[in-house]
């Protein structure tokens, strides 16, 4: 499907919303409102928005610990999500799962996951259901470059391809597994090349280009829907923050990243900046429209924050809830 001007502007608004949500989250984490930790995707917004725009409403998402963007791009109720991250009773699991265990069954988001690579096999099983029930759906699995080195990557990929399961594997390669750079993680730094080993297509896409992401994911979805089986899309991303809000630097406060890298990426690899320039170039966006969209995004985040801050703490007896054995 060709993206219209309205689609593109809405995608821009979504990217800004994700950015504001996470910057806001980092602020409130600093204020002590986020139990434990959270993993922001600042710099990776084009992947969430491009991929989710390509999905049909009936498709499933299985995601990772770095998933706020995937939910927002899918239209999840942001106040409920933020309340969950704050550990409040009004969150999607009553404040017991937090940032790493978000889900939204109304939008077929079956869950994010605290285990790196934990969703890869689950997504295969979701695809197996689709195949067995013969429904017109696809299972979409987000994971990262770190997960690509786990054994589940091999087992899950092999079985999905062997059984022609309708799955689209989206590997967000943000070039760091926690603190370790890609060159120290992957013998072959082209993760998409591994698809060949499983007899499936492997694509490499620029993660700063939201339209390229949309097009690549659309193609893989179509292939899966036609019974062609799984695809791997490696999307090169630029993580502009630390691994998590707890782990941003070396113990002494210095950076584990090359000097100047983050500044360079902010200048040259920020997907929102790149998309904004593109939209200006197309004549779809000007300062006035941009301000309107950004104000709408900010209003959503402000309302969500108000809701989350004012939500009640979970009741003590809720510790037993949803445990059946």
């Amino acid at each position, binding site marked *: 499907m060709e993206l219209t001007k309205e689609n593109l502007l809405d995608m821009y608004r979504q990217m800004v919303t994700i950015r504001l949500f996470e910057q806001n989250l980092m602020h409130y984490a600093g204020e002590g409102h986020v139990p434990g930790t959270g993993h922001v995707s600042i710099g990776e917004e084009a992947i969430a928005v491009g991929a989710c725009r390509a999905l049909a409403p009936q498709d499933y998402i299985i995601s990772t610990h770095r998933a706020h963007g995937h939910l927002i791009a899918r239209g999840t109720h942001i106040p409920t999500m933020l309340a969950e991250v704050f550990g409040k009773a009004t969150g999607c699991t009553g404040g017991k799962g937090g940032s790493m265990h978000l889900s939204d069954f109304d939008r077929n988001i079956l869950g994010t996951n605290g285990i790196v690579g934990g969703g890869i*096999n689950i997504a295969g099983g979701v695809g197996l259901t689709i195949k067995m029930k013969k429904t017109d759906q696809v299972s979409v699995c987000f994971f990262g470059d770190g997960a690509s080195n786990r054994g589940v990557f091999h087992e899950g990929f092999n*079985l999905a391809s062997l059984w022609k399961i309708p799955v689209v594997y989206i590997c967000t390669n943000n070039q760091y597994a926690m603190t370790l750079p890609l060159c120290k993680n992957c013998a072959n730094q082209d993760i998409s090349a591994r698809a060949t080993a499983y007899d499936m297509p492997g694509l490499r896409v620029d993660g700063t280009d939201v339209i390229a992401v949309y097009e690549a994911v659309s193609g893989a979805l179509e292939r899966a829907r036609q019974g062609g089986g799984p695809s791997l899309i490696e999307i090169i991303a630029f993580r502009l923050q630390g691994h998590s809000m707890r782990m941003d630097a070396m113990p002494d406060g210095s950076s584990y990243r090359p000097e100047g890298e983050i500044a360079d990426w902010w200048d040259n690899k920020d997907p929102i900046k790149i998309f904004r320039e593109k939209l200006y170039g197309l004549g779809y966006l000007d300062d006035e429209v941009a301000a309107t969209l950004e104000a709408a995004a900010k209003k959503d985040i402000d309302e969500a924050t108000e809701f989350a801050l004012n939500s009640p703490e979970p009741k003590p007896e809720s510790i037993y809830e949803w445990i059946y*054995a």
Partner: protein
Amino acid sequence: MAQRQISYREAVAEAIIEEMTRDDRVFLMGEDIAVVGGAFGATKGILAAFGEERVMDTPISETAIVGYAVGAAMTGLRPVVEIMRCDWMTICMDEIVNQAAKMRYFTAGRPEMAMVIRTATEGGIGLGAQHSQSFEAWFAHIPGLKVVMPSTPYDVKGLLKSAIRDPNPVIFMEPIILYGTSGPVPKEDYTIPLGQADVKREGKDATIVCWGAVTSRVMNAAKMLADEGIDTEVIDIRTIRPLDIEAILASVRKTGRLVVAHEANKTGGFGAEIVAQVQEKAFDHLDAPIQRVAANDVLIPINRNLELMVLPREEQVIAGVKAVL
């Protein structure tokens, strides 16, 4: 008319066939379960009855087998998967402990997680230290899992049918040495509730609590003790989690003496949990320190005589009972 006698492995297959007939959401996956009917013959004939769409041989990929089952269960199917040996459940512990057991909690109870993981457990047939272990204590430690270990053909049919109908993940452990044993099994549909112990022999002098393959040896020992005028009560708990502690307490209140027998290693075995609960809840009824009869804290050797030395036999059960009298 004499009751029909069938083997433990035939009872497993019969339970699965009845449940697959009753509910078309039930399907099988595992290594060598389809064409050859299982490494131990417990799924023989099921492929012929239901076809390869519902009875699937998988690659040797334990994480994929269980992970795919999680995804399939989350989307409404009811997978019954086989991990050929309990020892190899170690390979897919993330999928069992972090995914299957926690998924309902992380999703506010939204999907059912109806999945059964069948596995051949315990030793006694010379398969050695990586093919003879029994990890029921590990699984019983995890909220969200149910753990079952039937000791007779009658029990395995009724309990497996209950496990398949349960909306939660069930670890279903089948003692390998029992597959060839026979016993009366009704042809008609029946279930045995999970969490219900079976008083196999009533007695007044001491209680012996057991499960799995050691149960038949405990029954032999009870007969030998009866010849000496010692009247023991034998309880097969059948389900490890949830534990029918009330049945055990009722017996201990009557006899005042308790021996717990199992085939897993003694240290950290599930027997320790039963001992702890009994002293917490019925200390005043105990007339002697509780005894445990279990495998020595060693690895299981393949040599027949050495294996027999390590695994608990009638002699150790009798010695255990005499120690509490």
